[in-house]
């Protein structure tokens, strides 16, 4: 019996880089799960997620957060990316960890929905986040690549693993 929850690829940065891309993602799974553990290289950075190199205003997100003092929510629509962390939270020493699920990524009929949990621990903002997002790609295109980009270099040693989950 084939495994249902498979590792597709892992990228651990051997040197600092501004982005990490998983391309030619096989269409054989039902959902994707991206796990990140990443730091800023020379200062606090932010990280964003995009699909199929689309930087158009095709993303929107709702976020629920708690920062140790308060809890709240906010929202962005017609955005050019999905924020993986809250502003100013990816430090040089403590990795932001996130688990990002992308549902039904290979279909070409619906928009692609995303659920994410992330923890920011070392930057100017510290807290936990839960985020629901949608990507309205042109013609509901299947996701074949995804890119996590930093506002500045992502530190060497940062790790990104992409998994696939296959339904019967």
């Amino acid at each position, binding site marked *: *019996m*084939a*495994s*249902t*929850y498979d590792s597709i690829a892992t990228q651990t940065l051997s040197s600092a880089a501004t982005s990490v891309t998983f391309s030619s993602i096989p269409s054989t799974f*039902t*959902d994707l799960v991206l796990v990140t553990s990443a730091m800023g290289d020379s200062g606090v950075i932010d990280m964003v997620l995009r699909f199929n190199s689309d930087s158009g205003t095709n993303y*929107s*997100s*709702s*976020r*629920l*957060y708690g920062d140790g003092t308060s*809890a*709240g*929510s*906010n*929202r962005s*629509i*017609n955005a050019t990316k999905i924020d993986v962390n809250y502003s100013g939270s990816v430090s040089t020493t403590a990795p932001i960890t996130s688990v990002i*699920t992308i*549902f*039904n990524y290979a*279909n070409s*009929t*619906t*928009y692609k*929905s*995303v*659920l994410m*949990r992330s923890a920011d621990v070392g930057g100017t903002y510290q807290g936990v986040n*839960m*985020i*629901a*997002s*949608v990507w*309205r790609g042109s013609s*509901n295109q299947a996701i074949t690549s995804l890119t996590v980009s930093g506002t500045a270099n992502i530190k060497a040693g940062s790790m990104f693993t992409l998994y696939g*989950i*296959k*339904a*019967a």
Partner: protein
Amino acid sequence: MPPVHKLSAMGSLTTNKIDYPSMLAGNATYVPPSFESISTVNVGSGGAGTVVFSSIPQIYSHLQVRCTVRSAGAATYGTSDTLSLYVNSDGSTTYFNNELVGADGSAGTLSFSGTNNSTYSSSLGWMATSSSNANVFSSHIIDILDYQNTNKLRTIRTFSGYEDNRNGNGYGEVRIGSSLYQTNTTAISSLYFFVYSSANFAQYSSFALYGIRG
């Protein structure tokens, strides 16, 4: 036990034979996957009033349902409806639902609620409807831990959300929820999903049930 021979590794029946001491014949022991697909329902063009997983095998430690859904009906509240669940076909006043929600029409709001003695599990999250933007589906990850243990009540844990990318009449939310099923400690053998308003699930809604081994 006499030696075992693997035909695919033999030169012939009489020469170049490799003797294996066990029935594995040099093959690795089969280890079933820890996360296994049990069943999937993809809603077709006519829609579906309910989605049911029955006769769930009692061989796993935990269950997980991953679904993307949309109601074919109009919204019950705002642009949304509620993804709802009966456990073991039980619609009695047995569910204790708790939710924490970040939701938004145009400005951020945070809410939490708890309701006991509900007749269904209502904390699975709000779902997109025909009042939502086209092609928008809500996503839900539903965990039922230790589902076959007959010594404890069961909690249904959910992480869900959706975005329809509109202000004003639009809606986006992210939600965590739990439902305590209080009727009895009988093992969970069926899950019965429905739209709260009794509308159909829209075409392209999909539900996948997985088993997780301990």
